[in-house]
């Protein structure tokens, strides 16, 4: 940790109380704006779910291929479904995938990263091998395996599969962060205060890295939603449930772009983009909180 000249310690008047993370987060315009956008997207979908008859999600429930108009605000599909009704299911489902996968990825990744970085030695060597293996084996292989073993992939399955593969990057990153963090003096103090390695990780290192973990979580969220969309477009998504990826899949498989049914393919795409934007802003915001230098500048 570089100490700049201005840090020379003098008996100056104690500075005002530093803002805690919660204040920092609430004061960060990016986080607030991203959060509002995110909630707006989710809220619209949830409100829509209350207002739109879920029957309209089914095929053959409404005239096919209609552009947006009063009775179907986002138009209808070639299968005779209301796009708006599908969105009310797709948005929460996609967010669910992101949430579960990011949670799994961050938790597993942190666990392995911290342990590997803090303890070093052979534990580190073993974990590094495991991490590198998971970085290298294509997710597709596991997905096909799981699709063959379970009866019909659901949104939750997708989320778990993606999550089980979302930890290797965080693990790597957290490992190197831990390597640098563990040389800090407060870790020595913790050690001579009788803290075990596990204590030090959970009570000293984790709090230090909270904003950073938050940024990573949001990033994993974005990656998971993107992965879900990618897998769905390859036809490996949940068949009986709607996600943004499945909506794109169906619209592509019925040639909606060619037929100019823009309301069908553009709706999930734009929503996906807005969702990314919201999450990316939150991610940037967390980055600023964890890296104060960014705070004033961006």
């Amino acid at each position, binding site marked *: 940790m570089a100490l700049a000249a201005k840090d020379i310690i003098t008996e100056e008047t104690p500075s005002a109380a530093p803002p805690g993370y919660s204040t920092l987060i609430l004061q960060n315009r990016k986080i607030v*704006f991203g959060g509002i956008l995110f909630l707006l997207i989710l809220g619209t979908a949830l409100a829509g779910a209350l207002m739109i008859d879920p029957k309209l999600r089914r*095929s*053959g429930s409404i005239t096919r291929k209609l*552009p947006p*108009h009063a009775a179907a605000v986002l138009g209808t599909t070639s299968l005779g479904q209301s796009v708006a009704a599908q969105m009310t299911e797709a948005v929460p489902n996609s967010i669910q995938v992101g949430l579960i996968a990011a949670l799994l990825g961050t938790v597993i990744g942190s666990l392995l990263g911290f342990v590997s970085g803090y303890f070093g030695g052979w534990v580190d060597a073993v974990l590094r091998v495991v991490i590198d293996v998971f970085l290298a084996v294509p997710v597709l292989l596991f997905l096909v395996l799981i*699709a063959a073993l379970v009866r019909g992939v659901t949104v939750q399955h997708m989320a778990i599969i993606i999550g089980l593969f979302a930890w290797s990057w965080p693990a790597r990153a957290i490992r190197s962060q831990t390597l640098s963090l563990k040389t800090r003096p407060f870790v020595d103090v913790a050690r001579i205060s009788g803290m075990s390695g596990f204590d030090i990780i959970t009570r000293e290192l984790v709090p230090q890295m909270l904003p950073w973990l938050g940024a990573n979580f949001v990033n994993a969220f974005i990656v998971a939603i993107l992965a879900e969309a990618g897998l769905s477009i390859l036809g490996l998504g949940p*068949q009986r449930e709607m996600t943004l990826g499945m909506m794109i899949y169906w619209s592509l498989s019925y040639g*909606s772009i060619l037929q100019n049914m823009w309301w069908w393919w553009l709706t999930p795409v734009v929503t996906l983009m807005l969702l990314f934007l919201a999450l990316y802003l939150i991610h940037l915001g967390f980055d600023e909180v964890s890296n104060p230098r960014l705070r004033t500048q*961006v």
Partner: protein
Amino acid sequence: MKTLKFSAMILVLTALVVIAGACAAPGTLPQVVQQTVVVPQTVIAQETVIVPQTVVAQATPVPVDQARAETLNIAIGGPIVPADAINPYVNWNRDMGMHNFCYEYFFYQNLQTGEYIPWLATGYEYNADSTALTVKLRDDVTWSDGQPFTADDVVFTYEMIQKDPSLNWGQQVVDNVASVEKVDDHTVTFNLKTSNPHFHLNREAFPAVGIWGGTTIVPKHIWEKEADPKTFTNSNPVCTGAYKLANSTEQSRTWERRDDWWGTKAFGVTPGPKTVNLRYLGPETNVALALVNNEIDTPMIGILGVGSFEEVARRNPKVIAWQKDLPFSWLDPCPRPLMVNNAHPPFDKAEARWALSYLIDRNAVADLAYEGATTPAWGVWPDYGGVKPYKDAIADLLQQYPTEAYDEAKGLQMFKDAGVDISTLDLKYVVNADSNEEVKVAQVIADQLGRAGIKVTITPLSGPAEQTAVLEGDYDIKLHSFCPGYIAENLDLFNSKYYKPLGEKVALFEANSFRYQNPELDKIVNEMLATPPDDNAKMIPLFQQAMAIWLKDLPVIPVVQAPALVPFNTTYWTGWPTADNPWNMPVSWWATFNTVIAGYPDKDGKWVGGIKPAQ
């Protein structure tokens, strides 16, 4: 910077709105039917086609490019792997021109007209008890290297297969053929293992192509040099066909017309295209755009959906299909029933199968999943002219057992009567993940059953996993094609000789992974198989007896006819078979396609069809 974020947002949003606006087009808004379950058939009539005005690129007149005008471009559905192996006995991708441009067959069956077209052979004759079939070969056929095509090649091919039944398509040869004898240079006799008046229709054991492909005769003087026919890549194939391989890579394969083709001398005919390209262009959109641009003359089946086809035809009126209007498609000979696992309760009861049948709205399946490209099916046979007398003969049976009927209330009542509590059901609906068609149909059927209160779990499986699940009977329902669509052959799919208990693999998806057994039906079917297929006087009464049992049991649930939506581009080539001029089958991926390209002699020797350059 804070304002930057906001202006960023606003810019993004406006950009998107602009894109959306550009795509949007004013159109008359049709009436919307809300909430209530709609019979889509009635709604479709009111639907207006929405014409986007902005981004239409009308096909501009193409400057005449001589090389292009002499080329036929076919879009294929995937890359050509391996690019260099042209061996029909190991390679599974014969339809990349191997069997339609290179190799030729004794006879071609024109399912559309019911003709049995002699090609490498001139005729066939069974002996009295149908245990031997003698075929007369043409004496003017030569291989592409100039060697004559003779009975020796036929005998060699069959002996090669008998020696190694593990060659692709070999098993049926071994099962049916005892030996092949050369009578003279141009006459061979097939000695059969049993009496079988249907043998000349068995394309898996005899070089007579109906659907897709058939047993391929290979040149003895080339293949006898190969110790193991399985590792022979045959990358420079010697064939009898009108085209020779010019180039083959993963993304395309080029065939060039031979000037020394035997048929040119024998028939006095030269096929139109000088060059045939099979091209892999990626997914549907690319192929559609290529059709509009006139880069492609015809795509193979399954690439273009109806919606895309309509759009293509609107932008390029030179692109046509079998029919001018919906359903556009030609009927494929293999209808698509829903296989119901007869060994899984509650579908071990005929009442439950019938109840399920009433819950399926076939018109909606045809309209939604197939976008109107097909029609409901009453059984497992295509609605060809040859099938009509059979269908007419069971008209009253179909009255009694309405296989096309959709009646949700009745279906639910029947379940109740059979003592089935549908709320406890969770049907495992296995779907071939690689089949766009199956994935789409599953969606619609699951929605229909869901509406009736039956839970359906769609399980998309890829190749091997699907194969295992279906053959071992690990499914409740599954859509599948029933081939070859002949009367007796398709009834034979229900024969208990194919039956295996759950967990053991059956021979074929459609024979009979649904685990149906009925000895009475077996007896009738066996009798039909022993009757010459064109002996309608004997066959029709047998069919009536069989269907009385079949309809009562309903081992599988008929859903729709199989559509073959094959667009043809008439910019460079005309004379394609269509409903108005139904002289042949419009299928480019079958071995019969060479009779579309070159045409064929009818039974009076008159030359029929063949595609012609447009200019």
